[in-house]
């Protein structure tokens, strides 16, 4: 696929008044009224669509290597591009685990070959995610994959000494430790529902909020003690938001993410025992959802991250307690964020750009992404029809899996196009192949 110059007519950068935007040689070459398309350039009549920097996901499960029946780098990249993403961080809990330079380089190579989004591998903190000894963090950081985010996601680095050592060890690489905060003594792997009235009534093993909050409280103190960078994955409770707010006020170098599903869905959905709503951390009550939205609005929570977790149908066709944890997220994230944050007035378009692109790029130290929409910047962009709605049909998603909790739901905002360094990865709402680049 070759990069073609593109003129975007009648677009609204960050939701600001309409203008034209010219993309030449992979960069933004012009912003202004009535720009002229260069010879041979594609022209897109955008009818007032909103342009944002392409999104950056800090938390994606691409399942390759190991579970290519659930997702591959290719299918996950397609879902990401269609969701407006230009970069995803591929979590380390693959098989084999991404705990050596060889594995992270393989994942990065697969991502480059597909070429739809920049695939940034996440390295494991501990060997085999076992929480016992450090993974080869330095080798992964110094590899061609240049890993900057390390996480045992799926497992908590629960041992305080290992956590301390990992935080210290990361420092030379300007890397961040992304913690899956879940005290395994307070919430073990059988715990599958927010501990509260509903878990008690349904007889589902409770996953108490304090199992997350107490780990975050410990970790922010460790981050302060070591002077290292800590990132908290999928914050799900009001108490966690409070602890992070307090830590930031103290000057701790901590950042946090929230998933789209925790911004919209509540534990009440569990009453039918449908495992499509089984996710870790679990869906929480409405009070937590409101606190998460407020935290994202005021910047206590820095970023939206999907925790896109594809699962084959046969891993969900079980009783609730036996089914796999996780939900799809890449193609629905924008719609959920618009519904929960933009339409509620909690964020404006610039805020959406910050939480979905600028902040995650900064946290992951991703160069070229999350940049201002200015002349000379890399043309990593997504173009959104803000007033259109679409109904989520699992069969039409690009993922190989179908486990979306939003099936049948109408979501606002349609991704018309996504550009990666000036090249359209999505064009006219469809995945761009070589043939589909518009004339």
């Amino acid at each position: 696929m070759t990069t073609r110059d593109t003129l975007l007519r009648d677009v609204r950068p960050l939701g600001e008044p309409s203008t034209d935007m010219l993309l030449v040689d992979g960069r933004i070459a012009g912003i202004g009224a009535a720009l002229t398309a260069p010879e041979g350039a594609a022209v897109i009549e955008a009818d007032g669509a909103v342009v944002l920097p392409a999104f950056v996901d800090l938390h994606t499960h691409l399942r390759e290597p190991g579970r290519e029946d659930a997702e591959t780098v290719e299918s996950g990249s397609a879902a990401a591009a269609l969701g407006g993403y230009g970069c995803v961080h591929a979590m380390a809990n693959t098989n084999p685990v991404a705990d050596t330079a060889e594995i992270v380089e393989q994942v990065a190579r697969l991502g480059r070959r597909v070429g739809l989004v920049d695939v940034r591998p996440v390295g494991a903190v501990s060997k085999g995610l076992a929480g016992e000894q450090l993974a080869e963090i330095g080798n992964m950081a110094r590899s061609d994959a240049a890993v900057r985010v390390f996480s045992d996601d799926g497992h908590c680095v629960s041992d305080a000494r290992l956590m301390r050592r990992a935080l210290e060890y990361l420092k030379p690489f300007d890397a961040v430790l992304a913690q899956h905060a879940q005290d395994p003594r307070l919430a073990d792997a059988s715990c599958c529902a927010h501990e509260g009235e509903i878990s008690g009534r349904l007889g589902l093993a409770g996953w108490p909020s304090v199992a997350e909050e107490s780990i975050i409280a410990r970790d922010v103190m460790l981050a302060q003690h070591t002077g290292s960078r800590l990132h908290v994955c999928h914050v799900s409770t009001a108490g966690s938001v409070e602890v992070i707010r307090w830590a930031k006020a103290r000057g701790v170098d901590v950042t946090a993410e929230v998933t789209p599903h925790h911004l919209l869905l509540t534990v009440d959905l569990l009453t039918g025992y449908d495992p499509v709503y089984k996710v870790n951390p679990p869906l929480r009550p409405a009070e937590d959802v409101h606190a998460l939205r407020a935290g994202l609005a005021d910047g206590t929570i820095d970023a939206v991250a999907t925790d896109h977790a594809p699962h084959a149908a046969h891993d969900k066709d079980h009783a609730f307690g036996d089914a796999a944890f996780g939900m799809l997220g890449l193609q629905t994230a924008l719609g959920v964020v618009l519904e929960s944050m933009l339409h509620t007035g909690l964020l404006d378009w610039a805020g959406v750009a910050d939480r979905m692109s600028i902040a995650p790029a900064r946290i992951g130290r991703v160069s070229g992404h999350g940049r201002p929409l200015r002349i000379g910047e890399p043309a990593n962009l997504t173009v959104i029809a803000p007033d259109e709605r679409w109904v989520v049909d699992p069969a039409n998603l690009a993922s190989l899996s179908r486990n979306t909790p939003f099936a049948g739901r109408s979501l606002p905002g349609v991704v018309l196009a996504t550009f990666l360094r000036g090249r359209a990865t999505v064009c006219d709402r469809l995945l761009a192949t070589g043939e589909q680049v518009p004339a």
Partner: protein
Amino acid sequence: MTRHLLSAGDLSASEATTILDSAEQMYAIQARQVKKLPALRGRTVVNLFFEDSTRTRSSFEIAGKWLSADVINISAKGSSVSKGESLRDTVLTVAAMGVDAVVVRHAASGAVQRITEWVGCHVINAGDGTHEHPTQALLDAFSIRRRLGELSGRHVAIVGDVTHSRVARSNVLLLRTLGARVTLVAPPTLMPAGVATWKCGLSWDLDAVLAGEVDGPVDAMMMLRVQRERMSGGYFPTEREYAIGYGLSPRRLALLPEHAVVLHPGPMNRGLEISSAAADSDRSIVLDQVRAGVAVRMSVLYHLLAGADEPAAALEEASA
């Protein structure tokens, strides 16, 4: 009548009463020399048990056989997740054999409800994880009713590991529907999250409940089985301390009102939650519960499979 029996909470007072009234007729049959009714002749009932059970499976098996159904027992323990087969595949395989009803026991809460989404036949919950065990609640209600008359206005104390008890959940729902008052008694570690929102009384103090200080005198004491593995979970310090705090000792037995009965879903841990004095006393209706279990399950199978009509016609046919 409902198509499936998943939760005791799905039954209205009149539906529950209908099941109990029919069970009275079934109960009478147990005294006969020839116990078989033709009601479900030609129908196939599968006991699909994903978890070990002797008493509940046997009870359903006898109930089905006395109604002349063909009863097949399938022990599917470990056939799901551990063998890599999904629950859906296991259940569809059984349903494809052309069964009329499946009676399901599963270690995971909600598994039985999930099964109703996949199969067209009747589904009966024979215990799902720590969620519900509706036929146990029906047989408990039946047993209390036989001893004490109407349930309305009666006070039932349920004592023990409420958190992990499907028996307790189903009983709270059904007894409430039938107009009884329920008080749950357990140490705080064995009370489920959100129990304060349940429609029942709560106490940490068994002696206060026995003294009638919590919602009045007790008419029935239901002692729940304590799983010994709860010890390793740290829910209480020792068996000794549990027995002293929450066991139905001879001293406590003597504090019960004259008419009060003692229930236990079995199997009993004698000396832990219930003393032998209590288990073997005149107040104990533990064996009545077992006998009632067959009658109640006959009634449930009858109403779900044969329709909502009174079983009188079938009974007359049998005695003719």
